[in-house]
């Protein structure tokens, strides 16, 4: 049933964009991490569905990675970190929720207009996937820009990576090399982030980047 295949892929990719929006207005770290786990779960479903309809069993590996590593391990680890740091307070966002949501909508509209126009020749599934993926990437960027807290910036970056994986799996037959490397890069990136968070905590007892900003570009 080609229609069901298309519709479900569409639904799951659209769902990822929707969860990105939910991430955008979370103002508590714990709920932000919960929603991120949901984000990774939706990604895992979308990738698994692509594996099924493309007859590409290697994509199940990517789906399993998204499920096990991103939806479970990372949120749990990050929750431990914030508990140990004792930061369950509200996230101060730079811009208010209203303008952020408006900017988010504008970005989604932009990615639809750009990607649907230029991919007229590509297969419909790849088209929709790419458009949604770009929307997720741009929303991830927006999250990173609007947050000051190191942990929530990392969450923004990880949601951005999820968008990239959605794009990579949507492109039919893209070599496994890339997917594995993407997964690995997330892993490495996370190790890096972990080190950074610990170092930052050791030095300043806070992971709020505003505390870092007292040093602004130029040594006096």
């Amino acid at each position, binding site marked *: 049933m080609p229609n069901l295949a298309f519709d479900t892929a569409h639904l799951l990719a659209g769902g990822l964009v929707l969860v990105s929006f939910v991430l955008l207005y979370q103002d508590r770290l714990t709920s932000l991490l919960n929603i991120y786990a949901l984000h990774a779960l939706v990604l895992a479903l979308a990738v698994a569905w692509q594996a099924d309809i493309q007859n590409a069993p290697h994509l199940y590996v990517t789906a399993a990675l998204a499920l096990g590593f991103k939806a479970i391990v990372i949120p749990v680890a990050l929750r431990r970190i914030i508990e140990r740091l004792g930061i369950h307070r509200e996230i101060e966002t730079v811009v208010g929720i209203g303008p952020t949501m408006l900017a988010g909508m504008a970005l989604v509209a932009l990615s639809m207009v750009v990607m649907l126009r230029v991919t*007229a*020749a590509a297969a419909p599934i790849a088209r929709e996937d790419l458009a949604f993926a770009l929307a997720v990437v741009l929303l991830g*960027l927006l999250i990173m820009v609007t947050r000051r807290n*190191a942990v929530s910036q990392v969450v923004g970056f990880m949601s951005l990576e999820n968008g990239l994986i959605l794009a990579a799996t949507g492109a039919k*037959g893209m070599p496994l090399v890339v997917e594995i490397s993407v997964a690995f890069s997330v892993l490495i990136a996370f190790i*890096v982030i972990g080190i950074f968070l610990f170092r*930052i905590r050791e030095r300043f007892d806070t992971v709020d980047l505003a505390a*870092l900003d007292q040093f602004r570009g130029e040594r*006096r």
Partner: protein
Amino acid sequence: MNDLVFVRVEWVILIPLGAAALLALLPGYRLTARLNVAAAFLTLIAALSLLFTPHPAAGTYLLVDDLNVVFIALNTFVGFTTSVFSASYVGHELETGRLTPTYLRFYHAMYQLLMCAMNVALVANNIGLMWVAIETATLTTILMVGIYRTHEALEAAWKYFILGSVGIALALFGTILVYVAAQPVIGEGLDAMVWTKLVAQAGKFDPALLNVAFIFLLLGYGTKVGLAPLHAWLPDAHAEGPTPISAVLSGLLLNVALYAVLRFKMLMAANVAAVAPGPLMVTMGLVSLIFGAFMLYRRRDIKRLFAYSSIEHMGIITFAFGMGGPLANFAGLLHMTMHSLTKSGIFFAVGHVAQAKGTQRIADIGGLTETHPWLGWSLVAGVVAIAGLPPLGIFMSEFLMVSSTFARAPLLAILLVLGLLIALGALFLRLNGLAFGEPRGHSHPVKASYGPLFAHLALVLAAGLYLPPQLVAWFQHVSQLLG
């Protein structure tokens, strides 16, 4: 025979990789610093052997052609000289206690891993592999920038991490789009990511998709090049990390990212209907040049000063490649080589100066030619070279660039000359205070290694006086390739 040659390509990757593993395990400063130098030297030999053997046929993952051989030779040469400088530099850092032995071991392993990743990026024939390699190189430099663990170093590393990963993410999206464009023509699977096959078939790709892909790639890799609106990580990363890393960043990593942009520019040029990549690069290059030049005036930190100078010079090089045509490409290649040699040379000098004076503040450094004549005068020579005065190599490339631009687009040439002059003024203003006049600030003795510094300056001087005809012919050939 073919197999033999192919094995040599892999040496460039395997030697640093093996050395990285070894250095991660071995303790002791003397041994590891020497091993680091030895590994870098072997890699250089392997790279030079590529110059003198016929190129092997392009594989699915690796490729050696006339373009990347230039980059590999330059990369491994500066990698080697920097490792020699690094040995004496980290020795001093250990004595003063800024680095502990554990961190030193980590530093050496990361240094070799960085060399490995840059070489992979240069020989990659697969755009996915190239992306992975550049990402790895970025991660290792982030770790090294934060190695001193001071307040400033951590902020610099964090800034670099955030901006670098955003750039790398955009580049991956661009890479995926290139694959999507190639897939209907080449078919699914690995072949649609192999660069040689992409270029051969690029004429049949969907031009609209390629356009969007190139914008993502230019912004993504452009972040790593340090082009103007995306440069914010660069000065902090240069100023706060260990000085050998500043030298490698400025001299090499920026080039590797630019190489990636050039590869995709060639892909764009192979498709007639796609938008010309030149004007985009010209604009970004000019903005970087003029912005960098103005920013030179208000710097108070000596390493930050030369970091902004790197932004300015990467702008010039991007401008030259954006103009295109044999003459401008020639000037761009020459300028890139000269800038790598000069800037890493300057950082060698600056590293020892900062150690001798115990500070990086320009206000606390003065009269270097009196207190440390060798260091002081080499710094003067380096700044004269980087400012583009005759008879040194950068003068040659800038002269070529300005004259070829005047012939084709006089208005752009005026902007180019303006940027160059503004930078020249700023550099001499600062140099005057640093090198001449009353000695200022503390002064400690320092065991400097002058070999790498003098080697770089000598090469820059030699290139300014006389370019061997073989080298000219080689560069001309590569310029033709670049279109």
